[in-house]
């Protein structure tokens, strides 16, 4: 439940060309001064950070130099040990209390990573069809379908731009996603190819090496891959599972699966599809949406 804190603004007061005198927390007429945590730290400007009643809000507009360290320390201290508030006024028994708001659950977040983009066109799938176009189109369709089911979606790119793999991983990790799907397409093979990282699974740790961050999530990625494969097994679309070393999957700190769309090879009793076939893409999006829904129901983030 969100806790109320008395201070609305945080300010470091300085004199020109001098050291910061204090970090001041103020709320209306009430002020509390906190000495800088960094003795002798130079400071420029006023400024600072505003935070909401829950203190968990992000610190913005920080321009106090090292003195801000003291401010941040103060915010942290407040979050852990809030300044005592005046005792609540007793409510008469005949006066009804306002209903207690239940905590808002953290939204379920899925990161979609349409591979390639901009000058990085990816594979040429058909004469005028590039992989970057298919992955973006597929991502938009999938995002719409997931949002319709109440799932928050973060896309690493939503237009035709080339985003470096490391930046894609940063976006996904920052979102603290419950599932990450990297979307690819190829003219080779048949159906949908599912890949997880080929890193060996390791236990989770507070700090993970960037290059092998996914190793702590490989087991969950394999479960999610199996979930998606099961969803495809209920359709006529052929799906295969494998492991591969591909960027940016190895850097992701979420259950991550690379989904590669290939043309569906016609076989006895199975209709063939081209990658550009809207009906094919719609079916794949439907299956992936169902699989993510199942994954959401069966496995939650620890």
């Amino acid at each position, binding site marked *: 439940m969100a806790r109320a804190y008395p201070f609305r603004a945080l300010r470091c007061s300085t004199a020109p060309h001098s050291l910061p005198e204090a970090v001041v927390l103020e709320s209306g007429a009430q002020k509390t001064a906190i000495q800088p945590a960094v003795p002798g730290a130079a400071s420029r400007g006023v400024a600072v950070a505003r935070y909401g009643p829950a203190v968990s809000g992000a610190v913005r507009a920080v321009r106090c130099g090292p003195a801000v360290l003291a401010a941040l320390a103060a915010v942290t201290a407040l979050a852990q040990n809030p300044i005592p508030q005046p005792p609540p006024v007793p409510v008469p028994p005949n006066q009804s209390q306002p209903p207690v708001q239940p905590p808002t659950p953290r939204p379920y977040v899925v990161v979609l990573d349409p591979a*390639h983009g901009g000058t*990085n066109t*990816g*594979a*040429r799938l058909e004469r005028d069809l590039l*992989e970057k176009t298919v992955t973006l189109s597929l991502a938009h369709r999938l995002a719409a379908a997931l949002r319709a089911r109440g799932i928050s979606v973060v896309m690493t790119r939503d237009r035709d731009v080339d985003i470096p793999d490391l930046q894609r991983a940063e976006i996904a990790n920052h979102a603290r996603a419950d599932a990450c799907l990297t979307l*690819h*397409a*190829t*003219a*080779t*093979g*048949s159906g949908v*190819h599912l*890949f997880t990282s*080929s890193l060996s699974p390791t236990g989770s740790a507070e700090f993970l090496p960037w290059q092998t961050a996914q190793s702590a999530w490989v087991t969950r990625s394999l479960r999610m891959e199996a979930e998606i494969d099961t969803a495809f097994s209920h359709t006529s679309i052929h799906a*295969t*599972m*494998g*492991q*591969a*070393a*591909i*960027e940016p999957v*190895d850097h992701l700190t979420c259950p991550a699966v*690379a989904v*590669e769309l*290939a043309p569906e*090879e016609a076989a006895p009793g199975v209709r063939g599809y081209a990658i550009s076939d809207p009906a094919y893409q719609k079916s794949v999006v439907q299956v992936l949406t169902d699989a993510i829904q199942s994954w959401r129901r069966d496995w939650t983030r620890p």
Partner: protein
Amino acid sequence: MTRAHKLLFFILFLICVGMAVFLIRLRNRAQDRFQSEALAPPLTLAEDTGAAPTTVTLYMPNDLKDSLAAITEPIALPAGESAQARVLLDNLFAVFGASGSTHPMKVEDPIDDVFFLPLPPAPGQSASPGQLAVVNLSGAVSAAQPSGIEPENLTLLAIMATLHANIPTIAEVRFLVDGHTQPTLAGHADLTRTYLASQANPVPTPGQETTQP
């Protein structure tokens, strides 16, 4: 200048010219020998090596099934692991390019070199865990490789599985393209990392098809 001086100068001049000619001839001879060794054609046929054909296992990818299938072929392998690895991979790419291939890819001279480096023993152990094979692919492989996670991954797995099956001392494999590290094979498969050869070769039984690991 006396007559003796002139004679001495002339003799020394002749000696200098003779030494220069001798050095130039030595240099040309060394250069010819170096070029003849560097440009030697790959030893792919039994006639080249004089060795009897031996049965080797090649791993053939199947793009539609996303799997590797072990096939056996009689191939005359030359002496030396580096030459053997090169012959094995030349033959593997020849199978890729054959008609009716399940992983169609036509490349001439796909392998520039295969180098071997001993891996250092693990801490507390004296025995080396094996060798690192550095496969220097020609740029033609990158150009001919169909782009996609699956086809690129299958190509790498087939190379590693074939090497590991026939030269079991190979524990790890790295890939170069034209002598340089390249980010990916054709846009997807990571070429900056060192691969464990054993991971690519789960069931090295000829005639049996295995899904990729």
